[in-house]
């Protein structure tokens, strides 16, 4: 018997003017696995991720996370329900230190009031120490603890990507969406990233990742979903997908047209 | 009633002209120039210097003002726009406001604080029908707006410059890569934007008199119009301008003339609450 999927999306559709970027996509992600979404440029991968995380809402469809409907919920509500993400173009908080970047998300589920802050009462101190501990744990996972007090902008590019992952982890998500996490990384950095992803998977977090680099994805993914022109054209284990003639056509065909 | 409509439309035409000047600059570089009102004031005073101080014919004063304003627009671009490319919008807002302060106080030093009048370029007895009086100057304002609207429409849609401008607005880097002289396009936009506000100044001065501090409130009205019409939207700017002129005239007559300047803002806030991007929608897309 297959377990209840942690993400269950039905008929997700997104239009930009006349262009249909997502055309009734269904997606089921079983808990605890690494699932990849691949597809040629402009196939709707990031649009799907944006629809799931609420960054740019879908026009129609249903999206459930852990059984709860999140369609058209505000992004911060979705984040608090246990769905965290990173961005294709890095979006760290430039004016905060490394640890403060992570603390923003670590505070996700410890609400605080202005009254508590102003009086610096016990509740405030407890929540701040909680946040600090969570943030340091998250930095430890990606190996950035030593740079905690630096300004986020002082980190080199690849480490800024890791910082985004740490920030996403600090909200203690059930599902982690990674949007092209290896973009701009060299070989060694990509390998470290793969190790981190494996570590996260073994800690029980479900990972959904969008990746342009198909070879990188195949090694770590349990399941692969292939999009083309906003439609799901294949789904299955990496080896199943690799043999699928439609997938080969989508990648090779496109390359021919470009050439 | 009919008289109020005519007066309101005449006032609204001037607001529309200010908004059209803003639009030209906004459509090219996505910058809102908060010194547009001070440019208007400058236009009025250059006209007055020519026509009143140096006693040139009014037509010559108009021609000189338009040329001078084109130069002012280019200087403005060099001083305010170039150093701030790619910087956050509120810094641009503050820089243009600071430029407005500079212009206003230079005008106070040069021309003094007293209000001055400028003759209208055309004379003649007012038209009357059904109890409504339309002065020649009002008629001239309507015609000027119509001509400028037509010219701007043709400029944006039918000429090479219009296409260059749109390309520049959509993607500056690509525009540059495909060999568009981006800087020249932007310079033309700034020059035209300044000329339009100069014309608005020449049209206002015969009705309300000109004084160095006149720009602030007229400039703000231009933005209110742009906001109501949706930034960068040509029909929106014109309809918004006329609409605002009517609201102010009727509000001053039937509600209270003390709060004349408040109606514009109340209408604007109401519009924004209902339509956060203006009645006619903003003509720019945001990338997520």
């Amino acid at each position, binding site marked *: 018997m297959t377990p209840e999927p942690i993400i269950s999306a039905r008929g997700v559709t997104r239009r930009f003017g006349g262009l249909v970027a997502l055309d009734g996509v269904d997606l089921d992600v079983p808990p605890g696995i690494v699932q990849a979404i691949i597809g040629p440029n402009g196939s709707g991968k990031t649009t799907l991720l944006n629809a799931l995380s609420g960054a740019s809402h879908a026009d129609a469809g249903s999206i459930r996370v852990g059984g709860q409907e999140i369609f058209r919920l505000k992004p911060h509500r979705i984040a608090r329900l246990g769905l965290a993400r990173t961005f294709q173009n890095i979006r760290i908080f430039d004016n905060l230190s490394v640890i403060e970047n992570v603390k923003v998300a670590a505070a996700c589920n410890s609400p605080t009031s202005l009254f508590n802050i102003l009086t*610096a009462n016990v509740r405030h101190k407890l929540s701040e120490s909680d946040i600090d501990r969570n943030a340091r744990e998250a930095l430890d996972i990606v190996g950035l603890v030593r740079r905690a007090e630096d300004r986020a902008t002082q980190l080199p590019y690849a480490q800024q990507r890791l910082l985004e992952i740490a920030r996403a982890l600090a909200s203690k998500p059930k599902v982690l969406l990674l949007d092209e996490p290896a973009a701009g990384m060299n070989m060694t950095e990509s390998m470290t990233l793969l190790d981190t992803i494996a570590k996260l998977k073994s800690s029980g977090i479900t990972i959904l990742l969008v990746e342009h680099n198909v070879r990188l994805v195949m090694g770590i993914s349990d399941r692969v979903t292939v999009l083309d022109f906003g439609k799901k054209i294949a789904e299955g284990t990496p080896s199943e997908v690799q043999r699928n003639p439609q997938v080969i056509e989508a990648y090779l065909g496109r390359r021919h047209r470009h050439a | 009633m009919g008289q109020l409509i005519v007066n309101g439309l005449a006032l609204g035409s001037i607001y529309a002209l200010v908004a059209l000047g803003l639009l030209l600059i906004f459509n090219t570089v996505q910058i809102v120039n908060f010194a547009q009102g001070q440019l208007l004031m400058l236009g009025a005073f250059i006209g007055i210097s020519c026509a009143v101080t140096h006693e040139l014919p009014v037509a010559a004063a108009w021609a000189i003002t338009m040329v001078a304003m084109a130069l002012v627009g280019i200087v403005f671009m060099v001083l305010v726009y170039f150093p701030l490319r790619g910087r956050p919008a509120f810094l641009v807002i503050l820089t243009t406001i600071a*430029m407005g302060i500079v212009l206003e106080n230079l005008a106070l030093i040069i021309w003094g604080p007293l209000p001055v009048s400028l003759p209208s370029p055309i004379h003649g007895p007012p038209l009357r029908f059904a109890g409504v009086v339309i002065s020649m100057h009002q008629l001239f304002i309507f015609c000027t707006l119509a001509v400028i609207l037509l010219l701007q429409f043709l400029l944006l849609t039918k000429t090479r410059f219009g296409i260059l401008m749109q390309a520049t607005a959509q993607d500056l880097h690509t525009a540059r890569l495909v060999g568009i002289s981006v800087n020249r396009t932007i310079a033309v936009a700034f020059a035209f934007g300044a000329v339009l506000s100069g014309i608005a100044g020449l049209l206002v001065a015969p009705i309300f008199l000109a004084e160095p501090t006149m720009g602030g409130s007229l400039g703000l009205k231009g933005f209110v119009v742009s906001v109501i019409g949706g930034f960068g939207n040509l029909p929106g700017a014109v309809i918004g301008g006329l609409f605002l002129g009517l609201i102010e005239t009727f509000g001053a007559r039937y509600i209270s003339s003390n709060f004349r300047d408040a109606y514009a803002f109340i209408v604007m806030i109401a519009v924004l609450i209902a339509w956060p991007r203006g009645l006619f929608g903003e003509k720019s897309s945001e990338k997520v």
Partner: protein
Amino acid sequence: MKIWPILAACGAVALAVPAIAQDGYIIQLLNIAILNAIVVIGLNFVTGWTGQINFGQAAFYGLGAYTTAIATKAGLPWITTPFLSALVVMAASLMLGLPTMRLRTYYLAMTTIGFGEIIRLIIVHWEPVTGGTSGLRAIPGISIFGFGPQGQVQHYYLLIAILALAILIAARIRHSTLGRAMIATKDSEIAAEQSGVDTVRTKLLAFMIGAVYAGLAGCLYASSIRFISPDSFSSIQAILLMTMLIVGGMGSIFGCVIGALALTILPEALRFLGQWYLVLYGLGVIGVIVLAPGGLASLASLLPLRRASVN
């Protein structure tokens, strides 16, 4: 913690000033500068940290001042006025903030300018209550159960203490969940949202806190300067407050104080320039924005760096 010696030095200078400057006029000017500093620290929550442009700060300043003046002139005890002023500006900031916090830059700039203009027009034309353009005079002074500061110097010490408190509270908020959420909202609204930050609530809170700072400063302004007029809270003042923030250094509490001090004292010191002062002021603002985007505070932080590179 090398910030403490600097703070102690600033405090010592601040406390010693009245002993050096005997002139009542200078102390009065400093009192206004301190009040402006409180207003600018309030503005920093909104613009410096949360990244929302706000030209309504002068109107909140004015609302606080007029509330206090009208209440005390009507015979209410002074001790009620800080609460009344805070309530009025909180209500006003909610009224303005709730519908507008989703608006983007230009729209927000225009809405806040419009709000300021509407408040100014009400003050100018509601003459029986506000005194119209000539303002309100002989406003009762600060008095807490019969005790209150007498003379400029005592007011100065009281205001310095309140400024210190305002700085302390601002610093505490900065290093809390709320402060981090504000800066996250400014740096990337979408990333903040996806990290669980309710950005609309954060902006609204920043806006309200900023308004309360301005409202309380207005309350103190009315009862320590004891004369108010619409000119002190016009849109020109709103632009001046924004300039103080940017010239001082956005996002830096220290910068807010420096900016407010500099731009309150400078026009008086350069009074001989007449109209030319405002021309230079405009050009100076452009100069700072173009050449030193971090404001005067960032110039100060360059100094130790240079020393380090020499060693």
